[in-house]
């Protein structure tokens, strides 16, 4: 009886471990496919799209995850295949520096203007 309990517990742990691994892989698959642009759809991610391209792309991502690739390795792989545009998260480089720095510039100017106004009214 004691052994039977142990065996049942072992089987339960074994299956729950794999179910958990499967779930986490699926979550990661969904997360990655939400960050990957469907190149043949207008404004849709691979996650949202049901096009042939998106379905195949999800299969490739799933295969890579099963092979043990990390999230960043998959992004790098896809960028290497399709260019940086494939991801929704552009890197900081000579083409995108304006995109990244301009909001910061606007924020700094805004803060400076607010401080100036406050000082002006205090005086």
């Amino acid at each position, binding site marked *: 009886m004691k052994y039977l309990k142990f065996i049942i517990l072992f089987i339960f742990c074994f299956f729950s471990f794999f179910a958990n691994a499967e779930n986490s892989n699926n979550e990661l698959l969904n997360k990655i496919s939400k960050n990957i642009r469907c190149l043949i759809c207008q404004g849709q991610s691979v996650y949202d799209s049901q096009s042939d391209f998106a379905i*195949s792309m999800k*299969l490739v991502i799933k295969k890579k995850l099963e092979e043990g690739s990390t999230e960043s390795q998959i992004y790098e792989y896809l960028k290497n*295949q*399709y260019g940086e545009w*494939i991801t929704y998260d552009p890197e900081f480089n000579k083409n995108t520096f304006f995109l990244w720095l301009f909001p910061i510039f606007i924020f700094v100017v805004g803060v400076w203007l607010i401080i100036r106004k406050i000082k002006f009214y205090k005086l």
Partner: protein
Amino acid sequence: MKKKTLLIIITIFVLFCFVVLLKGLSNSNTYVPNTKIGKQLLSFKAKKLLNNEEVISDELFFENKIYLLNLWASWCVPCRTEHHILMQLSSNPFVRIIGLNYKDDLTNAKKFINQMGNPYSEILIDNDGTISIELGAYGIPETFIIDKNKIILKKFVGPINDQSLKEIESLLK
């Protein structure tokens, strides 16, 4: 004086935005990834359409020729329009055409070849489209021009036409 400076700054800013947006209008809104040009073609395993034999892609690129890797399917209408050009190219002794059949019904694919002619020296199958994704393709028809070292020289997205044929012929010289 201060108001004048502010007006100049705002005008310059508006003009700058206008020029950036105007320049953006002239860009094509169709994205064509060109990152694969000059890179080596990925090695992949696939089954042959005609005898179901598994083959490693590296075994196909060995002769001192220009290779065309053409992605096609029987359900793809533009593939039909480019087929006569592929037939024309297949008679060139310096060119070998390898077909990659994309997400197709194999019976229909064989029918297509029987009806339209077979320009391919080998036809491989990509059942689930994953090989095409790994090659960096995103639709069909798509044609990669590859040298014997498996370096991608050029990529045609969409059906090849007379202009593409001239470009391929210029690569042969």
